[in-house]
């Protein structure tokens, strides 16, 4: 495998913040050399273009930055695209109603990420020309936080448009798109080339909330221990990601081993059991799996409902309520799973859960999903405001 080590990728995700702030490109490369040795190409092309907003290496748009690198020596054949977000791109991520738009490759993704990526696209196209002329085998897309979201979009973009091998490394990344996007990333980039690392108490990977999904959809991810159960800003910081992965020599050791695999049987069991109520990260995780199950299995492949393009999550919820309402009207197993699902949601949002099939009108289903969305987003916002205070995060 051509993947780079957890420590190297985390350090690059950290150093892109300083790289994109350096006053000149020369200083950026002196900085890189002092960190990593003489392993990146600083070509004359860049010299000629300096002053022209940093030449080819610096990607720049209003809401995000990036830095592109061609490896040499031990990194010969490898190219790197590093991303970082800014405060502007985060706007709206925690709103109940998230704007969705269509990516260059035709998938439904968060509108803010999409706009940032698209405005960097012309520069990325130029870089991909450079990649073609340097005999590059692998392109590594790397980012922390919002940069992780851009790295994910970039990996799928490269694979889709350039048919090159891309690796995606993200640390504390938010979710990028709807199920179809996450699924496309999983299939196109390949689950063994996606390294999504997150701390247990980092809340950013929980936003935007469902129906946004992480890639890979196979739940192959890289879970890092952080103390406590309350999300704090401290464990979103890249320096803590760097230190958490520093002792691992490879990604295999970091791979998440779930205590209970979320297969069909365990999801059915979860839907049927009473269990404690309230919003928790774990309950939301199961609920996502359960909604997917009900749509996919009970309705024989209706997963498209949560994947097609909608302008906002509200229109999507409407569609979902409509689908489930149709399911209720069906005889047999499908309607039973809808009842279980609604009961479970009611328990999570803290309402009366004694509902039967005949209570599930279209209006009621709409109300339940709306309440769920609001409740979950409030939970995330509360966690985030704790982070802002305790972590003095900015």
């Amino acid at each position, binding site marked *: 495998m*051509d993947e*780079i080590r957890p420590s190297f990728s985390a350090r690059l995700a950290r150093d892109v*913040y*300083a790289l994109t702030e*350096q*006053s000149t490109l020369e200083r950026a490369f002196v900085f890189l050399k002092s960190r990593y040795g003489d392993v990146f190409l600083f070509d004359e092309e860049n010299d000629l273009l300096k002053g022209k907003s940093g030449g080819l290496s610096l990607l720049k748009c209003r809401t995000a930055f990036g830095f592109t690198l061609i490896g040499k020596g031990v990194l010969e054949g490898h190219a790197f695209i590093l991303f970082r977000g800014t*405060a502007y791109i985060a706007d709206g991520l*925690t709103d109940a109603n998230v704007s969705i738009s269509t990516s260059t490759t035709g998938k439904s993704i968060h509108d803010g990420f999409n706009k940032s990526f698209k405005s960097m696209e012309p520069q990325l196209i130029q870089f991909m020309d450079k990649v073609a002329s340097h005999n590059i085998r692998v392109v590594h897309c790397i980012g922390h936080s919002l940069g992780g979201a851009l790295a994910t979009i970039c990996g799928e973009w490269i694979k889709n448009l350039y048919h090159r091998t891309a690796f995606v490394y993200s640390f504390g990344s938010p979710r990028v798109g709807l199920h179809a996007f996450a699924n496309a990333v999983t299939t196109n980039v390949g689950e063994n080339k996606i390294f999504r690392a997150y701390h247990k108490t980092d809340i950013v990977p929980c936003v935007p909330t469902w129906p946004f999904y992480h890639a890979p959809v196979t739940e192959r991810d890289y879970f890092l221990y952080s103390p406590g159960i309350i999300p704090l800003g401290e464990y979103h910081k890249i320096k803590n990601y760097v230190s958490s992965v520093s002792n691992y020599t490879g990604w295999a050791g970091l791979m998440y081993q779930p205590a209970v695999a979320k297969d069909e049987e365990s999801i059915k069991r979860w839907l049927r059991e009473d269990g404690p109520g309230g919003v928790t990260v774990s309950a939301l995780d199961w609920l996502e799996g359960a909604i997917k199950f009900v749509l996919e299995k009970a309705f024989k492949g209706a997963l498209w409902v949560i994947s097609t393009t909608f302008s906002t999550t509200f229109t999507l919820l409407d569609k979902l309520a409509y689908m489930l309402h149709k399911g209720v009207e069906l005889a047999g197993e499908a309607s039973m799973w809808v009842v279980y699902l609604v009961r479970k949601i009611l328990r999570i949002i803290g309402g009366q859960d004694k509902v039967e099939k005949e209570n599930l009108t279209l209006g009621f289903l709409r109300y339940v999903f709306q309440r769920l969305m609001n409740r979950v987003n409030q939970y995330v916002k509360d966690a985030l405001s704790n982070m*802002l205070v305790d972590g003095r995060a*900015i």
Partner: protein
Amino acid sequence: MGLSDVGKVCLFSGMTGVIKLDGKPVSGAKLVRVVNKEKDITDEVITDEKGYFEFKPIYSRTITKFLPMEFVVSQKIDVFYKGAKYEMWSGVKREPEENTESRGAPLVIECELTAEEELKIVNGTSIFSLCKWDAEPDPKEENIFF
């Protein structure tokens, strides 16, 4: 730390020092300081007859409605003397506390304008500078790529 300090971050630590040219203190040199965190903040001081100057720390309040963001602030000080410009300090501050550029101690520098620019990384903050100051740089990280 009191509750009123929540979200208060240091963009550039207070700095005192002496500017020299060919080993001699420079009087009347203009030091222009620029910090940028989303927008530029600029101020300037003039060295006294002993080449001495003092910059107060720059703080900012930063409660945002957004997600937690990394602390990243670019810092610059240029010295203007007898028609020449010297890039004395160009850094990227990565920690929100004061004096992280000098590992917690007051930031006292000595600057020889004819010196070669050097990179120093302290507390994750990278600084290209003509100055010398008392701070142990971060230990070099061992790199294994694959």
